[in-house]
């Protein structure tokens, strides 16, 4: 995100200098990561400040209560700083943190909420809804909150994180068929919820 804003701001400047800025930003990040690996508290706080808003948002997708979501986020950051020495600088640092955070959310739901999956292979090749209306972020979050934990997890991993069914199956320790079925159930439920809300708005119910 930060890199994008830099390029936008320097649109009128010659390309060379913007590239240099991007490279220097990356080098700064590497420096901070190295310091954090040495338990430099100041560097660790910088990383936390930079990434925590995004990460809390991700945790909130899985956990309904904001305070519990924060707990999960802190546990996630503990794992980040414990393992930061293992980060090989091959790829996005934010992406690495994000993966740790998502895994932490899954662990939390499985343990605390005792989520288990009904291994059913039913899924309908639904001709899905053509939803025209625009939703606000809050509406979307409420819709996701309304889903049962199992459906919610699969939906988030598929729709927001962009994982394929095979990957979701590995992460949740279920079969690929179950993953597809769970997504199908989630979509059905969301559709029902959306229709309900529409009817409320239109005044037919």
């Amino acid at each position, binding site marked *: 995100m930060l890199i994008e804003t830099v390029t936008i701001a320097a649109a009128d400047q010659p390309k060379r200098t913007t590239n240099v800025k991007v490279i220097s930003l990356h080098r700064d990040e590497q420096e901070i990561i190295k310091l954090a690996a040495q338990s430099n508290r100041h560097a660790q706080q910088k990383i936390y400040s930079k990434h925590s808003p995004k990460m809390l948002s991700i945790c909130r997708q899985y956990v309904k209560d904001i305070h519990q979501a924060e707990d999960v986020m802190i546990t996630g*950051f*503990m794992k980040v700083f414990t393992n930061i020495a293992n980060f090989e600088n091959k790829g996005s640092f934010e992406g690495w943190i994000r993966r740790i955070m998502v895994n932490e959310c899954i662990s939390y739901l499985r343990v605390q909420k005792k989520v288990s999956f009904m291994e059913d292979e039913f899924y309908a090749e639904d001709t*899905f809804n053509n939803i025209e209306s625009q939703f606000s972020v809050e509406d979307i*979050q409420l819709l996701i909150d309304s889903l049962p934990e199992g459906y919610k997890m699969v939906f988030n991993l598929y729709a927001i994180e962009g994982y394929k069914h095979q990957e979701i199956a590995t992460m949740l320790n279920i079969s690929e068929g179950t993953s597809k079925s769970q997504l199908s159930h989630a979509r059905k439920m969301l559709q029902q919820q959306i229709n309900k809300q529409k009817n409320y708005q239109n005044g037919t119910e």
Partner: protein
Amino acid sequence: MEPNKFEQEVKMKMEQRLLNPTPMAWDRLDAMLSVAETKKPQRSYRWLYIAASMVLMLGAGFFFLDKEAATTMPSGESPAVVAGPESRIQAESTETTTAAIALPGVSEESSVAVTRKAAIQKEMTRDILKEKKQPAIVKQGEAVAVISPEVPSGEVQVPDSGKITDAVADLSPNIKAGKVKVDSRALLSSVEGELDDSFRSKMLQSVTKNYNTVKTALVNRNHE
């Protein structure tokens, strides 16, 4: 099955959202990090265990080696000492003179036969004969004459040699003592050297064996 329009919208909107955590959140994280850091440096007992087990194994190796050495030492000495004089005797048996031609058949039998005393005494008679050779041919002839009739008799054993040894009783103890003294000293030193060598090699073997067992244990532990 691909993300539909709704899901695409969900992704776009959720990606943009940022939620600010409470200020207390960092304080909690800070405390957790401090706890984890104080815990970390104290966990190095593993190498102590490995070192201790190595010492124990070396000690056990030493202990068992000592036991082995103690039992093999006494039996090791006597055969070496016995072997010495006999080899000396066999070496001298090659130096036989014409006078002893008659005796070789007998002496060979005796060297292969039961007691070494008989062999030594046979040597005595031969040596005595040798010495007698130098003074006079006559005496030699006499000795031959004395011995040759004895040979055909067949049982040329202790009693016959005993006659001759009695005649030169003075010479024999000196010769016997002198010869054996020199031999035994050289023999003992060589035997001791052999024992030391084997002890050293045994030590090296046990040390390398222990080192290898510890190494394999370490590697297996790492694999687990």
